Structures are given as C-alpha cells and as structure tokens.
C-alpha cells in the first residue's frame, strides 16, 4: 500500500466538510459524557435484570453520575466563555444535526418509551402484586422514602424525567446566564417539575389510607393535557375523599375554565407552556439542543393547524362521551344528568363559538371556516350521542374511545414521537402538532390576549436566527422583516428568538390589545411620505 500524501496539510477527508473538527468535544467534555453514560448503563443493566445489592447506593450512584456528567460537561462548555449566545457548531455537531448520535439517541429514547408504555414488565414492573425486579426494583427504596410504597414504571419514569429537567435545566441556566427572562423561566419549570409533578403527588399518596384516597394528581397538569382528569374512577375518588377531594375536583375544573383564560389573557400561553408545563419543561431543558430542528416550512404550518385542532375536537368528544357514559338519567338522584351535561357542553361551545364569530371574525379570516367545521362536527356528535342515548358514540364505546385516545395521543404522540424523536424532529413536536391544551391556549392567545412579540422598527436584517431557533417552527423572520408583531397561536413564549437576535429586534411583551396585530408595507426609517402612503390602511 502506498501511504505517501501529496500534502500533509490536507485535513482528513472523513467528515471534515460537514463537521469541522473545530467543534469536536474537548477532553473534559468526552470524560463528562462517559461519566453520564456510565450512570445510564447502570440503569440499563438493572433493566436487563442485573440484580444489584445495596440498591439505594447503586441508584444514588447512577443518578449522581448522570447529574455529574451533565454538570461537568456544561461547565467545560460554557464557563470559560463570555456570557452571550452559545450556538457555535450547533449545525455541525452530530447530536444536534441529525447525525449518527442523533439517530442513536432517538432510537434509544423511542425504544424506552415503547417499553415503558407497552412492556413495563420488561423494566421489572411486578404484575398482579408481585415484587418488582430489575430497573423498577432499583427505584423501590426511593419510592418508599417518598410515598411509602413500591415503585411503578411511572415512578421510574417520573424520577428520570425530573432528573432530566433539573440537570439540563442547569445546562440551560448556564447557557443563558446573561438573560434574566430565560433564567427565571427555567427556574420556574425546574420548580414546577420537582414540586408539583414529582414531590407533591408522591406526598399526597402518603396521605392515602383505607378510608381516604386521592387519585395521583399533578395539580398543574390541566385538562385536556391531562385528558383522564374527569374519568369516573378519578371523579369518584375525588368525591369520596371529602372536602379535600372536592376542592381538588373543583380546582381541576376552574383550572381550565377560569384560571387558564385569565392568565392567558394577561401573559399569553407562555405562562403555562414554557413556565409551568412538564412537557414544556422537558422540551426547554433536555430538548433545548434540538430546538432548531423544527420544520419551518409553510407546509408544516398547514399540517400543524389541521392536526392539533383535530386533537382538540377528538379530546373534547372523548371526554364528553366518557363523562356522559357514567352520568345517570335521574335528576332527582343527582342534578347533573346525561342530558343536562350534554346541553351544558353544547351551550358552552356555542357561546364561545358565537362570541368569536361576532367579535373576532376578521382576525380569523379563512380559518373561520375551519373553526365552523370543527364546531358543527362536535355539535352533531353531541346530538347523536343524545339520541343514541347509550354509551356508544357511533360505533365506539366511550371506553374504547378513551383507550384509543390514550394509546394514540397519550402514548404514541406525546411520548414515543413527541419525546423519543427530539433529536430528529425537534423538541416541541408534541406541543406543536398534538397538544390539545396548547391548541386551546393558542386559540385564545391569537384572539384574546395581551401577549405579542414586538418588532423594533426597521432594524431587522433578515438573518434568520430567530426562525432557526424557534422550536415551534414559526417563521419569526417573516414577520420581523416586515416590522410586523408576531401574534401566533403556537408561540409558547420561550423568548429564544429575542435572545438570539443579533440586532435587538424582538421583544416579548404584554401590552394593550389595541394595535397588537399590525403589518407594514414599508418599514420605519424610510421616507415619511412613502411610509404614510403605503402603511395607512
């Protein structure tokens, strides 16, 4: 073989065109990655039924290693540099540019979700009262510490989920340490995950006894994201738990019908989606490295509107059918009967629909037609439900409908695709295409909220950083370069567009409703007469 090179300076042809070696990991970063992966390997071994002695120590060691890996990696990556935007090499690194590592991670995550949802026994979940083994058993000590009982696969998942938000939250905090909006927002999602999603429900479970039992309830998890909140077993359980249970049930109803509309009016849907929500919390922390992978094409936007609103229709019908199925017919036994309930749902939807059509018709433009279609589908089904007067919704039983929703939307969409494919489709696929809660908040944000992203006169240079790093796939630049405020239903208010803008063009704001939606032909800075001529409408 001939090993003589013409020019010793020539870089190895391997991958250098697509991945300059300049963005390789440093030695410390490689070491930190190894420590973190070792922690994961311990968990994987447990999943493959390696029976560790001293479970509390092994579990602690695994979680500490995962945490240490991320923290050390982050410190090496950011601490030596000035505060500021840290996107160097994002488009070249394998993990963040759909390279080999992205696919490996995506497949690993996806497999984990499939096993979690459908084959929990493989993780060691003991069925029919049997003791846990494997990975789930490894978490038993922590579970006993928190809620007094054995772990389940959901406890394992909840713990790992929380650890992920906390450690990658640390990474995000350091990455955006110059930006107070980002820091506060991240502290918020870390707090809500740790306290509301993880600790409080576990402590609540501790209160349960033979005579008193509350369902597992993450208080910030609002219907319809929490699509099962009003199912019979939960409602029964709430009611039988006395005042506390009733208070929780009422809180659940107020959350969606009172608290959510008020907060969304004042702050936009960001109060939930990027400050409180657990799905958002994971997307903003662990998913941050993948935010640029969202599809920005107008085509994707069209798909998004159809899919996400169909999910809203689906979840509304499913929930109505489920509640309908367990209500009675006799108003002397309980005031809320099947028909009262259907009439209330129909009335509520009609009022919302009528108000929107009367006051906001022009803002909806051609989407009004689709809104009307959705509305009529729901009403027709409600009428159908009434006349069929059984538990059948057309051909489906309410229960099978719920199971189907739980499988397709709850498991496949939000879990397997939504999170498993972070490294391929970006970190907000679920929030953008699937989440009915986000769609309802978005609908209000678009029509009835003080929130907008303001653009700054004529300063946009169309560079595209804003659009690139928009995790919701909004083409922010398309608005900014027209001097138009961004008022989009999908915007979760993460604030990254504003952060990455090199020219100070974008600002998230809550301000008056007047003049919120604008659009300019000619941008500020040009001939005053010309601007007047073309911008007056």
């Amino acid at each position, binding site marked *: 073989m001939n090993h003589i090179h013409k020019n010793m300076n020539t870089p190895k042809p391997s991958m250098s065109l697509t991945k300059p070696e300049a963005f390789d990991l440093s030695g410390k970063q490689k070491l930190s990655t190894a420590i973190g992966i070792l922690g994961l390997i311990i968990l994987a071994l447990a999943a493959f039924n390696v029976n560790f002695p001293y479970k509390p120590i092994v579990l602690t060691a695994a979680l500490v290693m995962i945490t240490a890996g991320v923290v050390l990696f982050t410190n090496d990556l950011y601490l030596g540099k000035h505060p500021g935007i840290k*996107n160097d090499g994002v488009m070249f690194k394998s993990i963040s540019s759909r390279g080999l590592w992205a696919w490996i991670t995506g497949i690993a995550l996806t497999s984990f979700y499939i096993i979690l949802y459908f084959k929990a026994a493989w993780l060691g979940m003991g069925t029919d009262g049997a003791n846990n083994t494997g990975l789930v058993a490894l978490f038993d000590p922590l579970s006993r510490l928190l809620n007094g009982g054995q772990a389940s696969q959901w406890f394992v998942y909840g713990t790992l989920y929380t650890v992920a938000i906390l450690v990658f939250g640390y990474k995000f905090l350091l990455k955006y340490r110059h930006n107070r909006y980002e820091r506060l927002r991240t502290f918020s999602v870390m707090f809500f995950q740790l306290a509301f999603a993880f600790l409080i429900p576990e402590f609540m479970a501790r209160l349960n006894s033979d005579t008193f039992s509350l369902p597992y309830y993450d208080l910030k998890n609002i219907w319809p994201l929490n699509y099962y909140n009003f199912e019979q077993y939960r409602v029964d359980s709430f009611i039988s738990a006395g005042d506390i249970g009733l208070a929780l049930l009422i809180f659940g109803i107020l959350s969606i019908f009172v608290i959510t509309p008020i907060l969304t009016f004042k702050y936009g849907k960001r109060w939930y989606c990027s400050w409180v929500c657990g799905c958002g919390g994971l997307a903003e922390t662990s998913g941050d490295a993948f935010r640029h992978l969202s599809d920005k094409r107008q085509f994707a936007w069209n798909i998004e509107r159809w899919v996400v609103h169909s999910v809203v229709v689906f979840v509304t019908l499913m929930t109505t059918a489920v509640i309908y199925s367990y209500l009675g017919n006799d108003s002397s036994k309980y005031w809320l009967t099947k028909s009262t309930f259907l009439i209330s749902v129909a009335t509520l939807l009609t009022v919302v629909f009528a108000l929107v059509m009367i006051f906001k018709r022009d803002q909806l433009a051609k989407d009004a037609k689709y809104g009307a279609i959705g509305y009529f589908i729901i009403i027709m089904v409600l009428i159908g439900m009434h006349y069929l007067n059984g538990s059948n919704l057309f051909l489906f039983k309410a229960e099978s409908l719920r199971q189907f929703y739980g499988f397709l939307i709850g498991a496949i969409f939000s879990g397997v695709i939504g999170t498993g494919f972070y490294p391929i489709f970006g970190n907000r696929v679920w929030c953008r295409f699937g989440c009915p809660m986000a769609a309802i908040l978005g609908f209000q944000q678009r029509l009835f909220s003080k929130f907008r992203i303001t653009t700054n006169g004529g*300063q946009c240079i*169309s560079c595209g*950083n804003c659009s690139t790093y928009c995790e919701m796939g909004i083409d922010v630049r398309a608005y900014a370069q027209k001097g138009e405020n961004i008022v989009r239903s999908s915007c979760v208010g993460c604030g990254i567009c504003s952060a990455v803008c090199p020219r*100070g063009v974008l600002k998230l704001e809550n301000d008056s409703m007047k003049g919120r939606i604008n659009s300019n032909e000619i941008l500020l800075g040009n001939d005053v007469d010309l601007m007047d001529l073309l911008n007056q409408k």
Partner: protein
Amino acid sequence: MEHLVIIGNGISGVTLARHVRKLSDKKITIISAETDYFFSRTALMYIYMGHMTYEHTKPYEDWFWKKNRIELKKGYVKTIETKSKTLHFSNGETLEYDKLVIATGSKPNKFGWPGQDLKRVQGLYSKQDVDQLEKDAPNKTVCKRAVIVGGGLIGIELAEMLNSRNIPVTFLVRESSFWNGVLPEGESEMLNRHIRSHHIDLRLSTNLKEIKADENGHAKSVIIEETGEEIECDLVGLTAGVSPNIDFLKSTDIATSKGVIVNKYLETNIEDIYAIGDCAEQQEPVGNRRPIEAVWYTGRMMGEVLAQTICGNKMAYNPGHWFNSAKFMDIEYQTYGWVFGKKGRPEYEKHFHWKHSDDTKCITVAFHKDTNIFLGINTFGVRMKHEVFNRWLTEQRDIDYVITHLKQANFDPEFYTHYEKDIISEYKNQFAISYSK
C-alpha cells in the same frame, strides 16, 4: 408586458422586485451569479460558526418566487448594450430588458498590498467567500493563525467567526482605536477591551506592508508596516471596507465614479437604467449621509422607493432619520440619528457618555451645544426602540427630555436590569444641570 430586469439578488434587488410585483403585473427577472436564491448576506458569518445552515439564511422558501412570478436567472452579466437594451452574459447568452436595475452590491477593498491576490487571502462578502473560508480555515490544525486586515464591521465579524473555531487571530487595525472613525472614544475603547478579552491579538495603529507566499503560492505570513515584524499565518482576511461591484460596467456608457452615479430618483445617466443599494453613488447625498451607503437598511429602502418610481409614482430617495445596528462579539450596538466619532464631528455636536462598570454596556447621546437639541444616540449592550428615537428626532426633543424619558425607549427583554437611574445620575454629574422631572 414590460420586462424589468434586476442584476443582483441581494436585499436591494429583491425588495424592489417584491414591491414591483405588489404594485404591477410587469415581467420581472432577477439575475445573480452568486446564488440561485436570495439569502441574507448579513447571516453569512453564522453559517461558518455553525449557528445556521445556508438554507436557514434564505428569507423566503423556494416556491415563493414562482408563486409571485419573479423569474430567477443564474448568470454573470459581462456587459450591457444600452442602445439595444440587451444584457450579454459571460456564457454568450443575451437577455433583453425594458427597464434595468443595477443592484450588484459591493466587493471587498484591496489597496494594492503586495500579495493581496495570493491563495488563502480573502475578503468576507459573498457566499463563495464563506465556502472558501470553510476550506482554508476549517480548524486550528489546518489554520494555525489568521491575520485580519482592517478594523470595521466585517473585520470583527471575521474575527468572531475564526474565534468560534479556536483559530488564533491577529487583528490589524489602521486606526488608533477600533472603528474610531465612526465611534466616539469611550465606545471604541470599550470595544478594544472586549475584543482583547476574547483572546484576539488586536494591533492598533498597525498597517499591513505585504503578504508573503510559500512555494505553493499560499499566504504564509504578513509583514507589518510600522515595525517590520513578520507574523506567520495560514489565512489573511482583507476586511478594509467595501466598494461598489461595478467593474462590468466600465466598458458601457453608464456613468460611474466609485459607484454607479444616480440622481435622487436613483436614475443613472441612461434612460430606463437605475441603480440601488451598495453600488449606487448619490450625486446629492441626503443630509449627513454618504454618497455610497453600503448598509442593509439603505439597500432595502432604495428598493422600496424605486418600486414606486418604476410603477409610475415617481419618488425621490429621501430616507428618514439615520439608523443602523451591528454586533461586536457579544455586544449589540444600535444607533439612531447622528453620533460622530472624532473624525468629521461637527463643531456644534456635544456628547454625553455613560458606561456601565461591567464594561460591556454604554451609551453616547449627541446633542447641539447651543440649543441642547438631541442629535442621536449610540447604544451598546442595551436595546432601544427605533420608533421612539425616530419620534424624538422628528420632534427635536432636547437632551434633558431624552435622558429623563429614556425608559420609554428601552427594548431589553423582560426582567432585565434597567440602567436609566444610573444614566440620569451620571448625566447630572457630568452636566450639573438641574431640571424638573
């Protein structure tokens, strides 16, 4: 149908085409030798830094052009026959026009340095420049040191780019302080410190004498004019400003000087031929503006105006108050109205300067020394509202008003620390003026 042909698919030409399409049904063709589609030139640096791919820099999806019936033609115009209204391409093709707009932008300046045309010596302006940089400076093993010549906006971008790949940079700046031909002292000195804090070897008051070649015709070192020092390097970036990219017009009867000479209607000396953007040279510049404005925003504004003229509503290029922006490594910069550095500052212009103790934020407010009328503001590290300063300039507010109402102009993200109180007390300190709030 009238055929409008635009040479150049940058912000000027594309803005013009879009507005002409809104106003008329003319046939529109945009010609470019650089890329198939419009991209944001200001974003080129982010491709090399890995913040974006080339695809991300395109403000419109590829279907946009067909949908709006704007034809895109890739080709290099060699010359123009104005009598027969015909363009001749380098490959021998021809194209006839009814109206022609020259929007060919700029090219990097070269001042006759020995070695300026060697391999691994390049400017930073075009897509091809970034592609070349990717080849010649992929990492610090291949490119052990780069030397940048010329301390302006492009020079510091190139420095930031190379820095992102840990390639050591020596930055030669002719001026005694970075960009002080434009910026007042306090700002310029803050930037010197900021640049050096990024481990960039900033050499002020330093000129390039020559670039030396190795046996392959590649740049291997530069010689400093003042000291004769030789600095070894694998790449030389020439970023000493730009000039109009109009060499292909030399043999035509279109009048040129540094740029294509245009009147205030952006018309050249030949009927039905116009020039806009970086390559246009105004016969009568507006206000304090330069005859050639190589700025994104002015290119866009000329496109907006010329669309009116071409569609029958003849309008002069008469832009409003000056504004501009840039980013120096981690420090954002915006300017509204006029704030001059030492060079060219009118004798009536007086400054108020405030700088934060962390040395990354400062503002300079210019005002008239006799009337106290607000003339302009430079702001570093604090975002401010274009609309507010534009209004205050039109209303001819005085400096007291501007300083005391500065909060209204703040555009920083929510929860950011505000500095207005600091600024007001510094203002009182410097000018010992008492005023009511």
